[in-house]
């Protein structure tokens, strides 16, 4: 295995993050703080607690998921799209590196950045609300798995996209609505019966539900099902990345 290549890709991506620290870290932290002020303090104070959890606390896992998903996707997508866009990908493709090493380097850096952002959001949230985490190991498991699998998904988008519009298309038109409609700010029980059934087709519901369970033991679906969903999504992304590299999709002619 070409460990040096993984190291330099990882460090190069992390350096890119450091060079754009305001955009990379401050921006998600500020937007999360705004969510807390608007939903948690202003509106939340008029909403009764959900299953014994105050509304301001209830939305913390959903808000973290919102940032983790969007950040993981955009970091990884941009990480591989940019060298494709400016032509420097030739160097990676002509180096003695397997696709596994390329993926570990780029996706690993993106997932690490998301983990850092998620942790910062968690710390920020603790300033606004009184947080408790009932199952820390499960919480970390969901946290890490989400960062990795959605970074992989972002990597796929970055490989697929051949312009900046496509790069934004899926995160903006699919992921954001799915996160908002997946119970970030509410429990599925609060929806009418018909919409409860529709929501069950939203894969993000399972992520948020499982993650929320690890905090408060409150969930919309069983934690086993949530774990199975995230692992299935991870496996699907890995298979797709493997297929893209095997066929040289948009990388080798």
């Amino acid at each position: 295995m070409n460990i040096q290549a993984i190291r330099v890709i990882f460090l190069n991506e992390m350096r890119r993050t450091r060079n754009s620290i305001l955009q990379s870290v401050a921006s998600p932290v500020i937007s999360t703080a705004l969510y807390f002020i608007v939903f948690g303090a202003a509106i939340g104070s008029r909403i009764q607690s959900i299953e014994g959890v105050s509304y301001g606390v209830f939305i913390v896992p959903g808000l973290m998921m919102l940032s983790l998903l969007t950040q993981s996707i955009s970091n990884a997508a941009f990480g591989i799209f940019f060298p494709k866009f400016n032509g420097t990908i030739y160097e990676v493709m002509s180096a003695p590196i397997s696709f596994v090493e390329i993926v570990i380097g780029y996706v690993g850096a993106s997932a690490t950045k998301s983990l850092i952002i998620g942790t910062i959001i968690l710390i920020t949230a603790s300033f606004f609300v009184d947080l408790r985490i009932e199952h820390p190991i499960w919480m970390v498991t969901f946290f890490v798995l989400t960062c990795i699998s959605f970074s992989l998904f972002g990597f796929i988008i970055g490989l697929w996209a051949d312009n900046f519009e496509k790069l934004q298309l899926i995160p903006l038109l699919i992921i954001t609505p799915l996160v908002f409609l997946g119970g970030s700010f509410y429990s599925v029980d609060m929806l009418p019966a018909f919409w409860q059934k529709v929501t069950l087709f939203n894969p993000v519901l399972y992520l948020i539900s499982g993650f929320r369970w690890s905090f408060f033991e409150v969930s919309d679906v069983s934690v086993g099902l949530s774990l199975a969903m995230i692992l299935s999504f991870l496996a699907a992304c890995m298979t797709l990345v493997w297929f893209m590299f095997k066929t040289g999709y948009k990388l080798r002619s």
Partner: protein
Amino acid sequence: MTSDAIISIRNLSKTYENGHQALKSVELDVQRGEILALLGPNGAGKTTLISTICGLVRPSTGTITVDGFDTIKQFRKTREIIGLVPQELTLSVFDKVRDTVAFSRGLFGKPPAPAYIDKLLDDLSLHDKKDAMLMTLSGGMKRRVLIAKALSHEPSILFLDEPTAGVDVELRKDMWKLVDGLRQSGVTIILTTHYIEEAEEIADRVGVINNGELLLVEEKRTLMQKLGKKRLMVELAESVTTIPASLQKYGLSLEMDGRTLVYTYRAGEGKPTGITRLLSDISESGLHLQDVKTTESSLEDIFVDLVRSPEHQ
């Protein structure tokens, strides 16, 4: 593969998805330590050929071995000894010079070596630009950075794809010096170029490629001897309107308003040129000589003749 070939290409063809056949059954051996220049017009297949060897393009048919290893099955072994300088100035402009060169070294599996990278940048006259952002460099400087990146992992084969395209004369000569220095250290160099002058100046062998076909690969000197022509220009004291009948057998042409007789002949290979006889026949025909000079066809003339000949269209 011949005993000292470092790259061996057999029956290599490449047809792109749009149906364009960029390479047609290419057979080529590159000898260890030589400088091979690939000449050809735009779209001839030069870049496709080197991209295929470097792993950027998948061959449709055929095999390539580098130092005895297959470029697809044993890609790690082959790629770790190859450096590539691409045609375009493809650099991530937000990086620093030192960082981007260290990145390239790591990609090729080598541990960090700041001292080596410092020396490399010094050798490429980039000593005062080591911590400069790439976006602040001139085109010539960026070209040097690309060379530094290609040499960062100490390759034994270097591909230079149009290394001096759009480069000023001074930098071009610097590049030639650099290439010569690399050859002295045992690096095998394959360069593609439009500039015949470049091939003439630095190559040991020349390959001519057109329409995806490798028309020939020859020692530069042999090629010029084999295909090169010499022109003997005989300036006459008085102008003439027709060539005397006694001189018809030489296939002469009249130039400069009848003041110059031009005789074209193949040079070298120890064959008689017929010059002595021609000069004596000119005297016998009653014409008076004023001056005599010869010119040799350049690699450029040979190249143009080759790619224009009907059998290679």
